[in-house]
């Protein structure tokens, strides 16, 4: 039975997702998640969300997808132990070494290899499974045929980010922003009030993605500027191709967007709930009016 896994950047968004039919939600934890401090939950907020979700038989994952610096790794590993005590259902991490270390330290913990691990072929799937990942997240740019091959790899859950931004550079393979600029207002390091892991943009801690790939660039051919343009990127929504993905053996339908407000999360989740339920009932999936959502529904808003 496919699982609908939905982002929540606040308690209100989590509640909206649960009310709209999410089987599971994933949240950021203050100080430990990519994307900066916005859209992360404090410890009490996460505990509230866990209670609310578990009361309805739903699961909660914590996106701990900052890659820590050497000295910070112990803090992250200890924090995971704390989360297990709170009843977390799984964590999402972004580094092969962390997958192996967490598996060794917490044998029963649910571990997902983040989309930042850049799993793009079936050998990648098997690699992360062998390290101890229970699940891998694939980008929605892969074809159903590719995903069907991945689903043949035994012993690992296949998640596909069906609603996401396909950026100019692959997620997990970009360090353009930090080439240009480091965050000038570095937050406090972990261990102090309001502290966080001091990672780079790729690592997701202190670094901020300046969205440079969404700004106009001048393209020079030799010494001549030939055009000023935006770099290619697009919002992907597989809502009208969901049956192909589910038939390919996808276990988890995942949506991107911890930045989405509750009033945007709810209709998005309802659409995917409707489509998944139709597929499970063996009925034709409803044809949605647009394959891409309205601009206001997209993470990039364009």
């Amino acid at each position, binding site marked *: 039975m496919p699982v609908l896994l939905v982002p929540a950047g606040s308690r209100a968004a989590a509640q909206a997702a649960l009310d709209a039919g999410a089987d599971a939600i994933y949240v950021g934890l203050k100080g430990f998640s990519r994307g900066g401090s916005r859209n992360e939950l404090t410890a009490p907020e996460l505990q509230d969300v866990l209670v609310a979700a578990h009361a309805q038989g739903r699961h909660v994952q914590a996106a701990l997808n900052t890659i820590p610096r050497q000295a910070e790794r112990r803090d992250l590993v200890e924090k995971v132990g704390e989360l297990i005590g709170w009843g977390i259902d799984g964590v999402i991490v972004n580094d092969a070494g962390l997958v192996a270390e967490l598996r060794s330290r917490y044998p029963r913990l649910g571990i997902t290899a983040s989309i930042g691990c850049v799993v*793009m*072929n079936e050998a990648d799937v098997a690699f992360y499974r062998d390290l101890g990942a229970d699940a891998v997240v694939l980008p929605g740019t892969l074809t159903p045929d590719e995903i069907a091959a991945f689903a043949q790899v035994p012993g690992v859950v296949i998640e596909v980010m069906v609603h996401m931004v396909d950026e100019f550079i692959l997620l997990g393979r970009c360090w353009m922003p930090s080439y240009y600029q480091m965050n*000038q207002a570095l937050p406090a390091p972990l261990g102090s009030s309001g502290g966080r892991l001091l990672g780079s943009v790729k690592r997701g801690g202190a670094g901020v993605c300046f969205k440079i790939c969404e700004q106009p660039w001048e393209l020079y051919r030799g010494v001549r500027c030939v055009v000023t343009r935006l770099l290619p990127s697009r919002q992907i929504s597989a809502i009208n191709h969901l049956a192909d993905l589910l038939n390919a053996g996808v276990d988890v339908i995942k949506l991107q967007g911890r930045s989405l407000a509750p009033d945007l999360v709810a209709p998005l989740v309802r659409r995917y709930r409707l489509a998944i339920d139709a597929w499970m009932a063996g009925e034709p999936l409803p044809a949605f009016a647009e394959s891409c959502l309205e601009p206001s529904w997209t993470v990039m808003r364009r």
Partner: protein
Amino acid sequence: MAPAFELNTTISNLRDLTESDLSPYDAIYLGNITCRLYEGNLLEHLDDLREAIAILKGQGQKAYVSTYTTPRNNDLPQIQKVVAAAVEAGADAVEVHNLGVLKIVHEAHPDLAVHIGGFANVYTDVGAAVLKRYGAVRITPNYELSLEEIGEIQREVGLPMELLVHGKMPLGISDDCWLLEYEQTWGVPCPALCRQELFLKQGDWAMKSIGKGVLSGKDVCLLEHLRRLMTGGHACFRVEAASESPAYRLEIGRVYREALEAALSGSDGLKGQWWDTIRHHARIGLCNGFYFGTSGMAYHGVQSPGADAAEAQRSGVGQ
């Protein structure tokens, strides 16, 4: 007795190999890692790859064979052929950027020396330790790491770290080639498109586009810091020149060969003509990458040949 250091560079195709004087280098990475369609890519032309390995061995140089950064399923069979050909032809190591490929290589050739490339995202000692179990004997850590962090990984894991000491630093890789949009407009078909001099600029910031890949516009330059690198226990140094001219490979390689030998003998002296050569080949300017914990385009050093006040301010560099 093992040599005290290794200077290496990258060659994409047989033409670049035969047209370049690679005498300053101890070893060469063969193949273009960003795109299967790259002109004459050694990773697609196995006879050329075998010939390239034979040429290098005949010159007394080591031959390393690279593999693609982000292969999809339909790329894996070709990679398996490349690795088999590399082994058969006596390559000294293969370079792997993709962890699935690492698994495949290790299972098929458990005794083959594997170098981990910069796109493999080694950020931590535990990550490096995992890859060591899969046969890694050398690691290029992710370019975002500082020398301090790289040193910690080296000490914890006990593997040599390879450092890009000069050239345009990879900043990212895409699954698609956006330059194909310009085939008709410019009348330049693939694979000639990405061999042009193409830069993306925004204010004082520049990146070089090579189609699927994006490189720093400025050349990373660690000429002033070679003694520090050696004192820190580093001995594997790369001049990244896959997208450069034969003259670049030769002249920059000569500068670094001389400078490394000088550093090895304890000399801090920097010759003026070295800077002349480096400035001549640096189209946009020079930077230090992320080695000193600041933004990748900052330059640290007494010579400051590529720095300006705005950069220093932006990156928090106070010198």
